[in-house]
């Protein structure tokens, strides 16, 4: 017989099981009772009941609001997101919205206008041509979705900070609130809006944006989670009033900086 670490040199005397039968039985009964109890406690804790309790929900939302402050404090306006070589760009980009791609309603660029409101000096609307006349910037950055997937994409368009300077925005205002053609509002903080990698994107991989990805203009920022990058923009408001976006109203975190 082969020597093995895991096999006793001499087989154990089976009488040991008989001699200690009551003890063994009480141990396994106790184990079962405790096991069931712990499992029950675990299920009760992880079940929907706890999460749906109103006081638990408001506590979780309060922590989420606290996390907004922590993230704003962590945010470094000078810190640039990593950029990548053009060979890594995914073509086409990954489509994602609160509906499927076949329900996309294309926007007609000829009569499209970007409205500007709130704490700005110049409220005249912007056309595609006017935006295209601003200095254009190109960036190859990672898109990170709150679900966990990611891809690398190349975006270009004017910097949002240049746009804000052009309309004479009050840069001490706290928020920018965006509305879109697909009824997907979103809002971001002023420091993130003025980050050099925050664009009003008009192209992807150096081609005019395709309809499913936000033609003619979408928000694209390297410092926010995917769902903050609203497509098919229709208006920008500079405001001190906090207005949550589509997903924040449904419980996702507001600041969600990367």
């Amino acid at each position, binding site marked *: 017989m082969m020597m093995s*670490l*895991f*096999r*006793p040199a001499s087989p*154990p005397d089976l009488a040991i099981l008989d001699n200690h039968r009551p003890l063994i039985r009480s*141990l396994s009964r*106790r*184990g079962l009772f*405790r*096991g069931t109890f*712990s499992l029950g406690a*675990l*299920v009760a*804790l*992880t*079940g*929907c009941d*706890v*999460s*749906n309790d109103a006081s638990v929900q408001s*506590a*979780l*939302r309060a*922590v*989420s609001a606290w*996390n907004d402050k922590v*993230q704003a404090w*962590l*945010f*470094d306006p000078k*810190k640039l*997101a*990593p950029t990548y070589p053009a060979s890594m760009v995914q073509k086409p980009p990954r489509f994602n919205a609160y509906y499927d791609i076949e329900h996309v309603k294309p926007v007609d660029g000829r009569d499209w206008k970007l409205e500007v409101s709130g704490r700005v000096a110049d409220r005249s609307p912007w056309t595609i041509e006017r935006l295209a006349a601003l200095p254009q910037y190109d960036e190859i950055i*990672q898109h*990170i*979705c*709150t*679900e*966990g*997937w*990611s891809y690398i994409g190349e975006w270009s368009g004017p910097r949002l900070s240049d746009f804000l300077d052009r309309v004479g925005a009050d840069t001490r205002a706290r928020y920018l609130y965006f509305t879109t053609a697909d009824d997907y509002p979103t809002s971001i903080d002023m420091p993130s809006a003025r980050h050099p990698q925050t664009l009003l994107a008009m192209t992807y991989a150096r081609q005019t944006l395709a309809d499913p990805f936000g033609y003619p203009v979408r928000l694209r920022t*390297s*410092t926010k989670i995917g769902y903050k990058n609203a497509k098919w923009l229709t208006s920008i408001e500079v405001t001190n009033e906090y207005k949550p976006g589509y*997903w924040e109203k*449904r*419980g*996702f*975190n507001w600041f969600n*900086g*990367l």
Partner: protein
Amino acid sequence: MSLTQPVPEILPERQKPTLAPPRARKLHPLPIRVMHWLNALAMLIMIGSGWGIYDDSVIFHFIYFPHWIRLGTWAAQSQQWHFAGMWLLALNGAAYLAYGIVTGRLYMRLLPIRLRDLVTTVRETVHLHLAHEDLTTYNAVQKLLYIVVILAGISQVVSGLAIWKPVQFSGLTALLGGFQSARLIHFLGMSVIVGFLVVHVALSLLVPRTLLAMLTGGPRVGGQK
């Protein structure tokens, strides 16, 4: 001047060291017990809500977690739990490490681990000879498991930061091989902790005195800290 010299008489009376013997402490002092159970709660919150977040976009197509063991009815709620639980896990974990280092407890209880002891313990376990009458010392396998799970916990906080803030902590995320790699490390860290939990809970149920000791403090251990 030698350190062994008697305390000079010029010290005022009240500053003289007392001659009473050092009070024997419980095996698990109160702070340890509080931090242990807070950590248990934090781990359950982080694991259950982490499974809810994972299921939103799985890494392995053959692994997903059924609804009834997840924390949070859907991804947004699981995220709320996860980003609340992280504070409890990180703050309690930092307090535990600080306490363990300052009191010297971590070092005394978990080190050293000798290969010879490991082999002996494994052999005794297989031969069903494993002694567990003495709760006050850990065998080599226990020491190793506790060190592994502490390191896994630290790794979860680090990889969690790399996933949460891949731009602000871009250096850290790059060190872990990028966002998706950090995400995988975060998943594997969870797997290690869940594996530990299965063994840890099973053994504490098998030897209920250990479970009781984590509630009452257990026997007094004389003399030392």
